[in-house]
């Protein structure tokens, strides 16, 4: 649980009055572009950084003052890995397991995350996806009540991501609270019970994926020669924007009436439609609407 969190680095405000809560038996995804303050927030949660304002409570404890009591109860996967580069993968996992009184059996994690093929390989020589799987095993070996994962499937191939997603779902059904940061929309859509969209250090939207994507539907169309969006918008009486050159999005439920008006308007402009797609807003649409489309 976080309320009104503030974190500054010198003059830079990384986290500005941010509040949210993660519940047991739920996966909470913190979604945001790079530099939104996701990692800073997570570091405050695990006691690696001291907040400059606000309150952070983890399992009803203060992450800085009660760090000792919390360390065994939380499992953390950091973005930079934090695995000893010079050691073998299996030795790292067994070593972390030995810091707990009743760890998960190492063999079970090896099996679940398919680590067997590289247990005797030095961490330095692992691929990005292999390191991520090992880091996840390290985060889970102590049977944590709260799991914090900073971009867990970064650098993973699709098969590895499946395995990670299954494991996270399993943790949820065991009643573990899972908090993960991601900028992968499909990951949040596949896993999250609650989504918190963060930008510029503050929460700009929150809800379930269904709630966030509920609003009106969308019609996407491709017109390679270009369209007069203003004229089209006034004809169909719905907002129209050019998502990419020649690709347009009409923000409205794709009813037969709208499609008839839309195609008639294109005919009036003499515009050849090469594809037309009716659908709902994806989390990615919501995210881009909220955080803007320009690179930064």
């Amino acid at each position, binding site marked *: 649980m976080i309320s009104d969190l503030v974190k500054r680095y010198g003059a830079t405000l990384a986290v500005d009055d941010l509040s949210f809560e993660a519940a*047991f*038996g739920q996966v909470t995804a913190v979604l945001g572009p790079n530099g939104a303050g996701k990692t800073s927030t997570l570091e405050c949660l695990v006691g690696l950084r001291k907040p400059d304002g606000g309150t952070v409570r983890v399992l009803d404890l203060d992450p800085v003052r009660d760090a000792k009591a919390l360390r065994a109860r939380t499992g953390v996967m950091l973005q*930079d890995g934090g695995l000893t580069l*010079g050691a073998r993968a299996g030795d790292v996992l067994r070593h972390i397991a030995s810091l707990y009184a009743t760890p998960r059996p190492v063999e079970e994690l090896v099996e679940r995350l398919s680590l067997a093929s590289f247990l005797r390989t030095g961490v330095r020589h692992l691929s990005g996806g292999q390191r991520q799987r090992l880091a996840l095993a390290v985060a889970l070996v102590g049977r944590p009540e709260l799991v914090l994962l900073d971009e867990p499937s970064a650098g993973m191939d699709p098969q590895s991501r499946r395995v990670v997603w299954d494991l996270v779902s399993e943790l949820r059904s065991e009643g573990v609270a899972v908090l993960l940061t991601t900028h992968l929309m499909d990951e949040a859509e596949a896993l999250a019970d609650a989504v918190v969209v963060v930008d510029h250090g503050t929460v700009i939207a929150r809800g379930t994926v269904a709630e966030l994507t509920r609003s009106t539907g969308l019609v996407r169309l491709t017109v390679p020669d270009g369209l007069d969006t203003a004229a089209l918008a006034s004809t169909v009486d719905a907002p129209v924007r050019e998502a990419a050159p020649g690709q347009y999005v009409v923000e409205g439920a794709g009813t037969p009436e709208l499609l008839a008006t839309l195609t008639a308007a294109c005919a009036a402009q003499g515009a050849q439609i090469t594809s037309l797609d009716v659908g709902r807003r994806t989390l990615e649409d919501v995210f881009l609407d909220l955080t803007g489309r320009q690179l930064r």
Partner: protein
Amino acid sequence: MSSSEPTRARPAPASAPASPVRRVLAQSRFEARALLGRSEQVLLALVLPALALVLLSATDAVDLGLGGSRIDTIAPGVLALAVLATAFTAQAIMTAFDRRAGVLRLLATTPLGPGGLLGGSVGGVVVVQVVQTVLLGGLALGIGWRPAVVAIPAAILAGFLATATFTALALLLAGTLRAEAVLGVANLLFVLLAAGGAVLLPAANLPGPFAAIAPYLPTGALGEALRTSLATGAFPARDLAVLAVWAVLTSLATRRWFRWF
């Protein structure tokens, strides 16, 4: 997408830390293995001192101006060199690269915590030093070294204070500089101190002002303490006092400036 009901029920808490002693022992073992598992560290901590021991005791080519038995002067110096190599150079380099890879940050979130990390670092160094002392000491005994047995407690105390000082300095370096800079500085200081810090050879052998300064360096105090006590059985009071002051000063500086993350 999930359809599970939000629940506020806690899972049955199954997470529990191992006891503090077990955690520190596990970390010590892990660090000792890491130190002994790297070929460059083995070279620095064992091969180099062993070579110095064999060459300096076997040849008269280098006139050291030593009175008495050469081996009685050289063996304590080699042990001091081994302490410096492990507690300072190896420890600084390993901590610096672990810190850069985020290892210290991650371990700080496990039951080990920062305190256990420190304990484990010292424990790892001590384990390696025991291995070094057994192997190098055994080699020296084979060559003909006959240390004064009565002085062994004083020698161990000197080794302990020097280890505290060198480890604190290593962490200070690793916790404030970039990893590549630590690699350079730790090796450079090792060479400079080994040559001019009265580690391997008595301070009296050094030229001019160095002979006067060296006994007050932690390296010189360690070297002189081991030579004095193990060769003659005398209690090296001044050297131990110098080492104690260094241990306190360096520990305070490290407490003040070291950053785990």
